[in-house]
């Protein structure tokens, strides 16, 4: 009996201690909001929107991925830039010997789709939120559509054959999408921008500067029309932008030194900040990347020989090299000078020429507006000078060459270059393609290569990309094949999603 009562006590004890209550296994989640606790307040909506903009800094948000992968992959194939071959970033893209596994295009792919996925979440979830006014809903959804259009623009101009994803899916087996035709992507871009435009604000309050505006949507739509040679629609849309109160900055250099962020010439910028509080790091690294070793920079890339020679022909009425050229490049010229980070002073070329590793450098973004290390200076995606040049291009293709010259001369005049005289339509076309745009917009984010891309594919094409590159002495142009016009569909992505087909030739 005693034994049994012993046993009973023990069993009871164990029973009590191990009353296998499932409550014990329900551990609170203290670290994350979940799908059911998010999407409740206006703040949540704005956080989601912030994250959607954030993808412009690359999928990981890293300043290195932004510059060393995304920027270089967009810029290095073009004829205005020569990369420093001592550095490996996008080196194989620049020498047209990249493989399908190259990480630059993959980063563009990932960043764009990360942004699209976030925009899709907003477009799906915001309309059903109780906490937002209709106006807020409309504005936020419009911005998401603008961003989705921008991300698709990067994809369609880089890869052409990409999947069209317009809903955010959470079921694993629905993620293995197939590609659609480029036409369908362009259609979506136009649709999103057209829907976004009326709901976007023309201007944001001081604390929200940097969010997309109506002007940005019009300009991007105009640009999308140009890529499709929809000249008349482009003329209309870009013409609308010229009536919105934008203007060119007096000083060309202020576009790149942080002095006029989100200012009069700004249509849309990728925002960066020097703020380091709360563990934040949203800076960009151009100041180091463009600066010579001798100034403490990394000199990852240089202006090409062709660009410098072309720039030397951009003259004032007095026959001197124009201000916009002096503010764009640092080169062997008695008047050329550049900000040196090392010296924290502007230094004349002649004073440092013997220390320089390379004869010419870009100056854009080299200046440290905020003094600490990397930069908080924004990078322009579309600025008003670009809009005027695109508008001029549309006008010229629509047979309004004289009017086009007037628009171009506004840009030239601000850069202190002598106005153009009379030209024929085809002369002006060449002037725009091989002088005005590369001189005004040299090395700027996502400009030159994509210009070359669109000019070789439509009815107004005069020469192949390869011919342009050959004429402009692009190194390794002998490796260029038609397949290099597009990025390869990243092998990393095909490895996962076997529904994807490689791009032609890859």
């Amino acid at each position, binding site marked *: 009996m005693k034994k049994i009562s012993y046993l009973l006590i023990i069993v009871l*004890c164990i029973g009590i201690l191990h009353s296998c209550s499932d409550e014990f296994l329900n551990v609170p989640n203290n670290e994350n909001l979940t799908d059911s606790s998010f999407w409740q307040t206006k703040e949540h909506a704005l956080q989601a929107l912030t994250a959607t903009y954030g993808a412009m800094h690359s999928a990981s948000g890293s300043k290195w991925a932004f510059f060393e992968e995304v920027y270089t992959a967009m810029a290095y194939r073009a004829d205005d830039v020569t990369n420093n071959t001592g550095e490996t970033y996008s080196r194989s893209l620049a020498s047209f010997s990249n493989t399908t596994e190259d990480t630059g295009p993959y980063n563009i792919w990932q960043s764009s789709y990360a942004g699209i996925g976030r925009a899709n979440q907003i477009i799906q979830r915001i309309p059903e939120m109780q906490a937002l006014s209709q106006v807020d809903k409309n504005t936020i959804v419009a911005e998401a559509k603008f961003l989705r259009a921008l991300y698709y623009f990067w994809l369609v101009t880089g890869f052409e054959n990409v999947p069209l994803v317009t809903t955010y899916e959470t079921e694993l087996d629905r993620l293995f999408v197939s590609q659609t035709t480029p036409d369908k992507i362009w259609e979506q871009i136009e649709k999103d921008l057209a829907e976004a435009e009326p709901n976007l604000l023309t201007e944001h309050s001081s604390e929200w500067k940097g969010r997309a505006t109506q002007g940005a949507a019009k300009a991007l739509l105009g640009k999308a029309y140009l890529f499709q040679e929809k000249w008349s629609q482009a003329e209309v849309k870009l013409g609308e932008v010229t009536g919105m109160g934008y203007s060119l900055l007096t000083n060309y250099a202020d576009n790149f030194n942080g002095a006029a962020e989100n200012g009069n010439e700004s249509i849309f910028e990728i925002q960066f900040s020097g703020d380091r509080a709360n563990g934040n790091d949203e800076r960009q690294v151009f100041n180091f990347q463009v600066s010579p070793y001798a100034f403490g920079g990394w000199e990852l890339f240089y202006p090409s020989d062709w660009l410098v020679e072309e720039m030397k022909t951009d003259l004032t009425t007095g026959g001197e090299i124009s201000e916009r050229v002096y503010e764009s490049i640092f080169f062997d010229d008695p008047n050329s000078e550049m900000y040196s980070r090392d010296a924290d002073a502007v230094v004349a070329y002649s004073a440092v020429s013997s220390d320089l590793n390379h004869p010419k450098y870009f100056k854009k973004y080299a200046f440290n507006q905020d003094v600490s290390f990397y930069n908080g200076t924004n990078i322009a995606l579309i600025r008003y000078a670009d809009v005027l040049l695109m508008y001029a291009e549309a006008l010229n293709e629509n047979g309004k060459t004289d009017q086009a010259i007037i628009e171009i001369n506004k840009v030239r005049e601000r850069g202190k270059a002598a106005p153009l005289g009379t030209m024929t339509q085809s002369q002006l076309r060449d002037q725009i393609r091989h002088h005005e745009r590369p001189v005004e917009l040299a090395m700027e984010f996502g400009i030159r290569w994509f210009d070359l891309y669109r000019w070789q594919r439509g009815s107004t094409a005069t020469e192949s990309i390869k011919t342009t590159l050959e004429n402009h002495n692009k190194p390794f142009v002998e490796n260029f094949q038609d397949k290099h016009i597009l990025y390869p569909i990243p092998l990393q992505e095909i490895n996962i999603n076997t529904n994807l087909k490689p791009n032609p030739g890859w």
Partner: protein
Amino acid sequence: MKAKKRKTNTIFLLTLLGFTLFGFANTYAQNVVITGNVSENSSGSPLPGVTITIKGNETQGTQTDFDGNYSIEVSDSQTTLVYRYLGFVTKEVLVGNQTIINIGLEEDAQSLGEVVLVGYGTQKKSELTAAITSVNIEEIQKIPTADIATSLQGQVAGLNVAIASGAPGSAPVIRIRGMGTVNNNDPLFVIDGVPGDLSYVNPADIENISILRDASAATIYGSRASNGVVIVTTKRGKRGDPRVVVNSYISTHSIDDNIKVANRAQHDQIKLEAYANVGETPAPYLTNGEQYADSDWADAYYKNAFEQKHDISVSGGSENTTYNFSAGYFANSGTVINTDFNRFNTRLNMDIKLLNNRLKISPGLAYAKEKRRSIFEPLDGGNASFSPFLNIYSQLPHKAIYDANSLNGFATPATGLGSGNPIGQGELTDRIDRDEYTQFNIAADLKLFDGLSYQFQYGLNVENEHFFFFQPAFNFGPQSINEDPFLSETRSRTTSWTLNNTLNYVKTFGDHDFDILVGGSKEENVFNSAGGSNNRLPSDAIQALSAGIGDASSFGRNFSSTLQSVFGRLSYDYANRYYVQASARRDGSSRFSSKNQYGTFYSVSLGWAVHNENFFKSDLFTQLKPRFSYGTLGNQLIPNHLFLARIGSGGQQLNYPFGEDVTQAILSGAIATSLPTPDIRWEETATTNVGIDLGLLDNRIKASFDYFNAKTTDMLVFTKVPGTSGITTDPLTNAGDLENKGWEFSATYSSKQYKDFSFDVTANLSTSKNKITKLGVEGEARTDGFIEFNNFPTTRTEVGGEIGRFYLFEANGIFQNQAEIDAHGVQPDAAPGDLRFTDVNGDGELNDDDKKYMGSGLPDFEYGLTLNATYKNFDVSIFFQGTQGNKIYNGVKMWLYRTDRNNVSSDLVNAWTPQNTNTNIPRNAFGDPNNNIRPSSYFLEDGSYLRLKNLQIGYSIPESAISKIPVSRIRVYATANNLFTITDYSGFDPGLGNGGTFNRGVDRGFYPLTRSFIFGINVSM
């Protein structure tokens, strides 16, 4: 200072030695009473109840008393005394002229009565049906070390211990039977019955280690046992007067720096050639050479380290209470600048017997405190951060390191040489971890009746960590400026407790032996951390966050997990011939949603002791026991709350600035970045094990062999999803299957006890091979093994192959002339002197389709060989260890073969030129137009090696010489670790680079292993 310390110690030991050798003389007589003490050889604990008889007259005899003392009368000096004690080797001593005979008895390791640790208990080795290895802890403890896991390397078949980094205090990578999952492969460590962190346990405190290799052994730990279990118990007291054991050693460590980089003249020569070969103007610094320094950065980075370890323990007790108290100190001064490590350990274990020995209460308390100054090392896979060692090796020799005129003593690079002074930055920057670990344990064992007993156990582990990072202001050029002193501190605490309750029933009915265990267990783990940083402190002398005047940041984590389980085990044998064991465990885990919370795991195993059969008569075999087992195990080593649809928030990825000015406000972003995975459930591994235990020639040779085949299903994998989904954080899903099979063999030969001489040899050999049978979505391949950032991937994992195989271009010699290049036809940018890469698929193009699988970092087999010998009072042990058939991608070499602005390998002096064609080093070409450094077989090397891991010679001072001083045993020894390594690998060390799962064998420049010489002493009182 260091040298002086060593000298003092040596003098002390020499004095002690002289004292004991020449100190005493004895007188002898016939018909005397011999007195003495019998103790356990290893610990010096007295042995009560030892039978002492006179040889040839076994009826005359005596027993030792409670303190191990005895006295016996003998007739003449030719009498031989025989000392017998169960479980110990019987010893015979010729009396001779002695009157005091103190004897140490050796535990009989060969005894089939040996007991091994199993889950929640012990089992006789002879009854084992599972693949369990009981580690010979004394052998291991002979080799001094700060970390027990490191010394297990090569000692146990099937246990793979790889050094991820040679940094002092760094944790090795432990794998039981290779890789059973792509997930976390760490085994479960159970310390005194409670899961814990072995790295905090002083090796000197360890009493026993068991390695549970197969499922049947480990099922009792169900949910977390799929990577195997390592059970450790710490030393407990034995009855008797207080016994003091002191173990001390001092040692020196040095790095064998076999990476040769160019000096200034070689650098200039190589780089000028590189620029000339592509027709570019050389950088100005190459032509103004003479004005610059010619620094040896690596030499300034490395230093010789001094290491010391001192342990003391006191144990003893009365009939009812026994105790073991120990304290230890370990310090290593680090082999690279500004690193060191020290640890203080203490432990008190007690056993209190109550209720007429029916109840035993066993409290235990241990505390460890560590301080580590370290450098940052990237050991994991994925995006590769840059190794600090590569950074050192790639510094231009032209840059000066020191500058007596600068405020901090370090040089800012001269104009034109770029930025950075990693020596200066390393010396000025403090990265300090101060960690504390407290283990509290209380166990109770109550004998009820009829072989039924109840066990209670509660264990609490508290780990407090503090990380301190301080960087003073410095200016080493524009790219290497820290404008203001920066301080970051993080405190974290992990509290985990385990509660076990078990009932055990052991009963024999005739030939039927039963052992039944049932129990329940609960566990909770709570992690909290809080940290802050400030990027501007008012002065380098101020190191407190509250003084910060710059941007402040704060961060912290807060999560917990729970586990509750019931389990049972039945062991049965019939007539010591047929053994059956069955176990089951049901686990509930908070890491899964309520519908998948519970998992049930079970196993059965069988053994047949053929040697106990009546029909079995063999002079050769003393033991022959085939075994079989099958069982299932789980794995839940995943982050918490993954089953919820979590919203990602904040951080560099999602935040974005808005507003005016260049330093506009940064807003916090939040949105879903991963997929909800509500259905994730237990990963499960089913293992079949077939083994045999052999004893030959009176168990002089003992061997065991095991074959295993483990199939992991529903493997929890961070599944790569298409980028098109917008998902940037891979969701964890049960998306993989894996097979892992292999075998293990170990054998020991122990010689007879010759007069003055005995020896034993142990060899072990093991192999495992894994194969992915499902990974993520169909056809998925995973790329890893990046050399820098996310560039230069070298490995690929896909269905049908091993985890992390090298996937590379095939380099096939050097083009000697343009005709060869034209004939090859697929490398348009090549020039004579460049590497030829094979167009594997022959499609006339060199692209990704031409990459090939070329083996992996996992060896074909690995082995260890230990030889122990004793001659008179000398003992020697020699331990070899090695691997065969593993490949290493020499990322260090690849990096030092680049021709950008950094320094390069001095090999490049011998690069191909039209005049120097008899070389395997491609031409120097700035910008590398042929991409010679692409991931290719050129940098893949054979990582097989054979290492003399340690060699030890010991001398025990004769018992007679120390019988008059209150010391029962003194042993002095000298050890050399890592004395030599035979390998074809040209990099630092073939034993490194094993940190990650998908990037095993990728050498990105890790903290190299050190060679050390040790001098130590063991004293028992």
